C-alpha cells in the first residue's frame, strides 16, 4: 500500500519552545492581585450570592427552613462521610450556627427571624469563602514552573532514553508533550480579556498537563477548582492552595453551596482571572470525547460576560473560551475508568473481573517510569461565550462570517437585560459549540486508530453478541490476521485523512508514517503502561488483545466520527 499524500493542517504545527509571558510582571497578574486581596474577593462572592439568593430569602419561613436544611446536610456530611481533609474546626462552626438557630427559635413564632437569618447566611457564606479562596504565591509558582516540568518529562520517558539523556536538552518538555493550536491567537486575546480554558478530561494527569501547557505558552496563571480530597496531603495541599486552586467539596450538593461555587467562578472571571474548568464535570469514564457537558460552571461565563456589560456597556471586557483536547497513548486509570463506565451503563449485565495482584502493582510502578506517554494538547479556536469564532483583536464572527457584537445577545429593546432562562439557553449553545470543537480539534493518535479498527473488527465478527459478551471474549477469540487488519485499517485511515483535509479532525504526526509503520507504532503505544497488552502482534502475523475492556476504552476515543461504516 502506498501512503496517501496530504498536507498537514496549519494548526498541527507543534510549538517547540516555551513562550515568554504575555504579562511579564507576575505580581500584577489578576490571580495574584485578587487572591492576595482575599477579604475583598470573598466579600464580592458573598454579596453576589446574597443578591442572587431570592429563592432562599424570599420569605421568612422558607429562609429559616432552608438554613435548617443546610445545617442538617452539613452535619450529615461531617458525621457520615468524613474525610481526612476536613477542617477540624468545622464542627465548631456548625455547632455555633446551630446555637444561633436555636437561640432565635422563639422569634419564629413572631415571624421575626430575618435579621438573625441574614447574619447566619452571611456567616455560612463567609465560611465557604474562607475555605474555597486560594492564595497565589509567586515563589510557589516559580518553583512549580522551574522544577516540576523537567521531573515530569523524565518520569514520562522510557528508561533507556532516560539513562543516556538524563542531563541532555533532549529532555525538552515539548519532546514529550506536544502542544498544538493557534497559540499566538490565544496569547493575543489574553491581552484583551479573560481567557477560560475548557479541556476534555479523562485522566488525573490532565490538570498538570494542561497547567504546564498554559504556562508554556506564556499565559498568566489559571485558577481552577480542585476536589477537597486532593488537599489531603499537607505539602501538596499547601502547594495547590498557593497556586490558585480553589477547594471544591463534591460531597456538598445543597443549592446554596452550588450557587456559591458558581458565584465564585463568576467573580474570578469578572476580575479577569484566567479560569480553567473541565466542562464534562468529571473524567470521561468510557474514554470517549465528551458529548454532553455540565452546564453549571460553563454558565458562569455567560453571566460574567453580561455583568461585564452591566459595568460598562460600551467597553465591557470580553471573555474568551478556548476548548482544548488532551490525548495520551495511555491513560493511567483506564482500567478503573472503563470498569466504572461499564458498571454504570450495563448494571448487572456487566461482571467485573478482579485481578489487581501486588505483582502487577510492582509491574505498573516500573512501567510508569519507562513508558512513553505521547501526550498531545490541542487548543481549539478561541470563541466568545456564544461559541462564535473571534479574531485576534477579539472581534466575534458568526458561523457565516458576519461580524457580531456579543453585547447584542443581552439586549432587549435597546436595553441590557438580565434573564436567567436566556442565559441557560446560551449556555447550551456554548456547550454545543465546545463539543463540536472537541471533535474537530481532537488529535487522533496511532493508538486510537489501531484500537478502533481492532475493536470494530471484533465487534462486527461477533455482531450477534451483546457488547458485554464481546468484552468477555477469551484471548484466542480476539486474533485478527494482519492481512485482514491492514485492509480495514487502510479504509479507516483514508477516511480520517479525508476528514482532516475537510478540517473535521486533526491527525497525530505518526500519520506521516507509511501504513505498516503506523500500525506498528499504534500497536506498540496503545495503552503501553497496562499490565495486559491492549494490542499485540505475534510472529505469525496475528494481532490480538489481552484485554477487550482496555481495547474498548481506547477505541472509544474515535466513536462519534461515524467511522464504523468503514469496517
Amino acid at each position, binding site marked *: 500500500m502506498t501512503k496517501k499524500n496530504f498536507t498537514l493542517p496549519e494548526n498541527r504545527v507543534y510549538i517547540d519552545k516555551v513562550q515568554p509571558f504575555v504579562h511579564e510582571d507576575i505580581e500584577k497578574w489578576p490571580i495574584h492581585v485578587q487572591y492576595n486581596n482575599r477579604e475583598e474577593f470573598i466579600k464580592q462572592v458573598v454579596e453576589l450570592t446574597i443578591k442572587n439568593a431570592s429563592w432562599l430569602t424570599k420569605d421568612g419561613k422558607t429562609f429559616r427552613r432552608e438554613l435548617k436544611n443546610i445545617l442538617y446536610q452539613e452535619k450529615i456530611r461531617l458525621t457520615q462521610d468524613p474525610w481526612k481533609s476536613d477542617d477540624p474546626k468545622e464542627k465548631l462552626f456548625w455547632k455555633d450556627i446551630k446555637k444561633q438557630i436555636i437561640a432565635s427559635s422563639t422569634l419564629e413564632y413572631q415571624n421575626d427571624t430575618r435579621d438573625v437569618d441574614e447574619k447566619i447566611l452571611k456567616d455560612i457564606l463567609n465560611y465557604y469563602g474562607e475555605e474555597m479562596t486560594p492564595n497565589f504565591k509567586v515563589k510557589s509558582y516559580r518553583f512549580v514552573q522551574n522544577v516540576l516540568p523537567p521531573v515530569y518529562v523524565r518520569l514520562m520517558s522510557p528508561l533507556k532514553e532516560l539513562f543516556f539523556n538524563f542531563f541532555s536538552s533532549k529532555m525538552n518538555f515539548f519532546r514529550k508533550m506536544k502542544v498544538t493550536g493557534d497559540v499566538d491567537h490565544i496569547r493575543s486575546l489574553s491581552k484583551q480579556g479573560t481567557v477560560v480554558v475548557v479541556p476534555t478530561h479523562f485522566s488525573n494527569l490532565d490538570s498538570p498537563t494542561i497547567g504546564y501547557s498554559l504556562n508554556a505558552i506564556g499565559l498568566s496563571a489559571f485558577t481552577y477548582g480542585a476536589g477537597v480530597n486532593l488537599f489531603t496531603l499537607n505539602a501538596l495541599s499547601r502547594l495547590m492552595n498557593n497556586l490558585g486552586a480553589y477547594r471544591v467539596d463534591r460531597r456538598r450538593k445543597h443549592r446554596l453551596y452550588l450557587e456559591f461555587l458558581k458565584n465564585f467562578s463568576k467573580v474570578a472571571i469578572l476580575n479577569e482571572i484566567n479560569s480553567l474548568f473541565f466542562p464534562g464535570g468529571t473524567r470521561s469514564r468510557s474514554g470517549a470525547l465528551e458529548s454532553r457537558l455540565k452546564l453549571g460552571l460553563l454558565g458562569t461565563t455567560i453571566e460574567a460576560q453580561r455583568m461585564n456589560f452591566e459595568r460598562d456597556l460600551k467597553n465591557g471586557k470580553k471573555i474568551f473560551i478556548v476548548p482544548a483536547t488532551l490525548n495520551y497513548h495511555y491513560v493511567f486509570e483506564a482500567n478503573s475508568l472503563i470498569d466504572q463506565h461499564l458498571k454504570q451503563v450495563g448494571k448487572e449485565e456487566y461482571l467485573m473481573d478482579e485481578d489487581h495482584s501486588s505483582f502487577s502493582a510492582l509491574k505498573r510502578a516500573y512501567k510508569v517510569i519507562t513508558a512513553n506517554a505521547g501526550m498531545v494538547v490541542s487548543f481549539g479556536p478561541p470563541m466568545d461565550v*456564544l461559541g462564535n469564532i473571534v479574531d485576534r483583536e477579539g472581534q466575534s464572527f*458568526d*458561523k*457565516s462570517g*458576519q461580524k*457580531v*457584537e*456579543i453585547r*447584542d*445577545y443581552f*439586549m*432587549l*429593546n*435597546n436595553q441590557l*437585560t438580565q*434573564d436567567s*432562562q*436566556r442565559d441557560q*439557553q*446560551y449556555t447550551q*449553545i456554548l456547550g454545543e459549540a465546545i463539543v463540536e470543537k472537541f471533535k474537530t480539534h481532537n488529535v487522533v493518535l496511532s493508538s486510537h486508530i489501531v484500537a478502533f479498527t481492532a475493536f470494530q473488527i471484533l465487534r462486527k465478527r461477533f455482531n450477534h453478541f451483546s457488547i458485554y459478551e464481546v468484552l468477555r471474549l477469551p484471548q484466542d477469540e480476539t486474533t485478527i490476521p494482519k492481512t485482514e487488519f491492514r485492509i480495514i485499517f487502510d479504509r479507516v485511515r483514508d477516511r480520517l485523512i479525508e476528514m482532516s483535509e475537510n478540517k473535521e479532525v486533526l491527525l497525530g504526526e505518526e500519520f506521516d508514517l507509511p501504513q505498516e509503520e503506523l500500525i506498528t507504532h499504534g500497536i506498540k503505544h496503545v495503552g503501553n503502561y497496562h499490565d495486559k497488552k491492549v494490542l499485540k502482534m505475534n510472529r505469525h502475523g496475528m494481532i490480538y488483545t489481552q484485554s477487550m475492556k482496555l481495547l474498548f476504552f481506547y477505541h472509544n476515543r474515535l466513536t462519534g466520527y461515524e467511522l464504523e461504516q468503514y469496517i
Partner: protein
Amino acid sequence: MEKRIVGVIGSGSFGLAVSNLIAHNYDVMLFSRNPDVVDKINNTHEHKDQKLSEKIIATGDPEEVARKCFLIFPLVPSNNFQEMLRNFSPYLTPRHILIHGTKGFHIEKDLANAEKLDKEDVYTMSELILKETSVVRVGCMAGPNLAREIADGQVGGTVIASRFNEVIKEGQKAINSNVFRAYGSNEILGVEMAGVLKNYIAIASGMLNALGLGDNAKSLLITRGMAEMIYISKAFNASEKAFLGMAGIGDLMATCNSKLSRNYRVGYFLAEGKKLEDIIKEIGEVAEGVKTLKVVKLLSHYGFNAPIADALYEIIYGEWSIEKGVNFLMSRPVSFDADYVD
C-alpha cells in the same frame, strides 16, 4: 403601552392580518418588496380586501425595518423565505427577535429532482433563520389562524413557541388583544412540524368533503392524521406535546373544516376532477401541502408510518384515483389507538 415599532415582513393576506393584530398594541412597519404595494398601503391603508390600521406604515427597505424594529415577524411563504432572509441578513444582529409564521419546510436540494431527502436537507423556518442570519432568539407562531377570519376581527388564538421565554413574552405582548390570544410553548420544533404537516391532512379533508363523506369520516381523518403527523415528527426528535395544543389539534380542526384554507380547497377541487396546475393558478397563493407531501414521501426511508401521506402522494403525483386511496387506507390492518402517548 410603551412606544415601539414592530416589524412585519410580507404583505400577503396573513401578513396584513397579523399587522392589524399587532397594531392593537404597537406601531407596525410592514415590509413589502413590491413598491406599488408599499405606496398603496401608505396612501389608502387598504390592501387585498383588508382595511389596515393607520398605525401600519409600509416600507420596501429592509435596512429600515432592521434599524427601527428589534421584534420582527417574517410571514412569507416558505419558497421565498431564504431569499427574504438573505435580503435582511446584512442588517440583522443578535439584538433582533424573529418570530415567523410560515408553515412550510425549506429544502436544501432541488425538490423536483431529488430521489431521497435526509433530515439534514430539511429545514424548518426557525432553523433556516439560525442558518442564514446572526439572530439566535427565534420563535414561531402557529395555530388556527385563517387570515380572513383574523382580518374580519373574529375571536381567535395562536401559540408562540421558542426556546427563549423572552421571545414568547415579547411575541405575546405584540399579538395579544381582546380578540386574539397567544399562548406560549417551548416546543418550537413540535409546533413547527405540526404547522407544516397539517397542510396535507387539510388536502385530504377537502377531498372527503367533495366526495360527500360525512363527519365520521372527517373525524377519522383528523384523528389518524394527527397520529401520523406525530410519527413523522418523532423521527425528527420533536415531542408529541405540541400536537395537543393550538398548532396541532387546534390548527387541524380549523383547516380541515374551512373552505378558507388553501390546502383544503386544493383537495376539494382535485376531487371535483380539476387539474393541479389549474387549481394552483386559481387559488393564486401557494398551497404548502402539495410540497409537504413530496417532502414526507422523500423522507419515508426513516421508517415512520404515514399511510395518509402515501395515499395522497399516489393520488396527486401518481395515477391513483381518490377512491383507490380511500380503499387503500380502509383496508390496512388496524393498530392501537393513540399509541403515540406513553
